[in-house]
């Protein structure tokens, strides 16, 4: 697939002026190779002349369909969503990890994130080969000192984490899900872990399906106090199993921004058209690194549309939708 080489080259040396050309080229390739997506585009009856018009595949489609832009027999990797919404899990198939690896590493660098020793509050790729986050952690830790603090689902190793931190002469990165950090806060309550100056915390994932909620500002305040780190030293990674690229923001109120190969359009749900700057809407991501499935993904996550492709994330959990006193049938049937 020539377009894969072109995308890899773009990831290595981004040329923003080529984004549209590559996006349209990849869109055409994916329509030809990905029948479910092609049928969806036909149902929409769209004609596409700019990257913003590329139809976003509903994120849910990964739960109901095999969204591949390559022959099924060439599948070597399968990432799965957590399946916490009661509708089964979504699957993202890949024949190789080259583009994903490059997107993760180059995206980290593009966000000017440091190459400090990294502590991972997540499973290793070996512990959970179907987790794209675990794989991401694996890529980021490949060429630097690192340690995993994940014993089993829901069980972290706070003692090893403390030893890791205290054994470092300089700054470190701690990377994990918001839930994992919440667990650490609870299991080490009263025993603060002082990170070396200049360290960074990267949290991701929210609290989907956990029945636990905490305001972001509250979580960051607690993390800041517990780890002796400024609020702006706490980062959020916005990514998803169905994507290959990530968006980052620091502190509580700063917007997210992504690498040159991934752009965002905020869609006004009332009109189904692009939201005006400052307006709130649903995030649609056009990710050139999503070579093997569909480059445009329509999420249900809400954000304020900002300038220069930035966005301020508002909410990530579609199940948080107020339902009045009507109860969601699918949740009952899923045993939630």
């Amino acid at each position, binding site marked *: 697939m020539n377009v894969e080489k072109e995308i890899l080259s773009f990831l290595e040396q981004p040329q923003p002026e080529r984004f549209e050309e590559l996006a349209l080229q990849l869109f055409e390739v994916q329509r030809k190779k990905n029948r*479910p997506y092609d*049928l*969806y585009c*036909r*149902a*929409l009856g769209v004609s596409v002349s700019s990257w913003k018009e590329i139809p*976003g*595949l*509903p994120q*849910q*489609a990964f739960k*109901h*369909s095999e969204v591949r832009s390559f022959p099924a027999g060439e599948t070597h990797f399968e990432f799965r969503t957590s399946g916490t*919404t*009661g*509708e089964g899990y979504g699957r993202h198939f890949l024949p190789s990890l080259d583009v994903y690896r490059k997107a993760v590493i180059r995206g980290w660098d593009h966000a000017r994130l440091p190459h400090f020793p990294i502590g991972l509050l997540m499973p290793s790729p070996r512990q959970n080969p179907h987790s794209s986050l675990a794989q991401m952690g694996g890529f980021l830790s490949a060429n630097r000192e690192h340690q995993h603090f994940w014993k089993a689902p829901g069980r972290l190793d706070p003692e090893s984490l403390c030893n890791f931190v205290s054994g470092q002469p300089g700054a470190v990165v701690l990377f994990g899900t918001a839930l994992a950090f919440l667990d650490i806060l609870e299991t080490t309550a009263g025993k603060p872990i002082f990170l070396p100056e200049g360290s960074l915390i990267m949290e991701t994932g929210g609290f989907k399906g956990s*029945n636990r909620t905490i305001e972001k500002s509250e979580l960051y305040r607690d993390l800041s106090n517990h780890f002796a780190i400024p609020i702006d030293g706490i980062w959020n990674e916005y990514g998803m199993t169905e994507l290959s690229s990530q968006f980052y923001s620091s502190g509580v109120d700063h917007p997210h921004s992504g690498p040159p190969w991934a752009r965002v359009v905020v*869609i006004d*749900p*009332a*009109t*189904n*058209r692009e939201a005006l700057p400052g307006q*709130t*809407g*649903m995030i649609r991501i056009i990710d050139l690194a999503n070579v093997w499935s569909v480059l445009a993904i*329509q999420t*249900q996550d*809400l954000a304020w549309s900002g300038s220069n492709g930035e966005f301020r994330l508002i*909410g990530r959990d*579609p199940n*948080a*939708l*107020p*339902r*009045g*006193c*009507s*109860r*969601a*049938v*699918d*949740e*009952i*049937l899923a045993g939630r």
Partner: protein
Amino acid sequence: MKFPERVQAIADSARAFPWLGEITSQLLCDWVARELGVEFATSSWIRYGNGFRRLIPCSPILHIVSGETPHAALQSLIRGILVGSENWIKLPSTDLVEVRTFVDSLPKAIQPKLSKRLLPGWLESAATVVVFGSDRTIQEFASQVRPWQRFVPHGHKVSFAMLLGEWTKTEILGAIQDGSAFDQLGCLSPQFFLVKEQANHFAEQLARQLKSSSQVQIPLEAAAAVRAFREDWRFRSANDPAARLWESPDNSLAWTVLFDPGREFPRQPSHRTFVIKPFTASLEPSIELLRKHISTIGIHPVVPESIDLAIRFGAQRICPIGRMQEPALDWHHDGFPSLGSLVRVIDLEK
């Protein structure tokens, strides 16, 4: 305040809230007589077996009401006033304007105390605690009530409709009525329609009838959920022609109709989302799993076979299609005696 005055005051205040249904002094008196006996109005002893009985209110009643249910909150308050209790209402943090307006219109003597926080002593000293809310809310309060306190939980519920025979335009209009009221967010709102005969045609006719519906404004999060639902099902129906989607024209979110012959019950975002499923035996195991959570099942036709099936599925309330959102004034909310739960009985034995 004496019973006749309380009844009159409720009827007067309820007049400004037509969505509560018809509430007149006569209807209220009839209801009390039916459920508690005519003697309740005069607080007198009545013969009961070899002795006598007298009903007195379990007072005070603490009503914990939720933000999305002014209808249920007012119903609960009306019941409390009717039996003669003192009433305390813990309002949601988002407040409930309708409840405040209703309360302001009542005579001072029977006005409940309102607060957005649970005031000290309320939970500890209430004789009856009525809670509306999610499982988590109910469990939270259930763990705090004392053994001597009466606890009346009203959790979130599932309602749906079954059309087991030939249907006409009357049922189409009834389905629209049921699926439109209260933004389809109530515990009596049908989340899906099981149709035995020509289900696809029913969906098509429903969509045709909805075309004349007016535009509606829905909150952003709900709009996003409806949009996501539509796109998800546009994708699914493009890949599986057995499923079909109809939607309000010009990109509006006024209504959505889905015909889904699949065996699963899809998550639907309410706000006039009509999910139509052919009623086949293969769905019954899933419906059985819902039985602990069922409130109302709307049925057509209203015949013994449909009624028996609705009972088997766990219905607390059975009514014709088109009446799902209009429970009778004296209905047994979640199967509880509406007034009987709020009184205690004193027996006088010879």
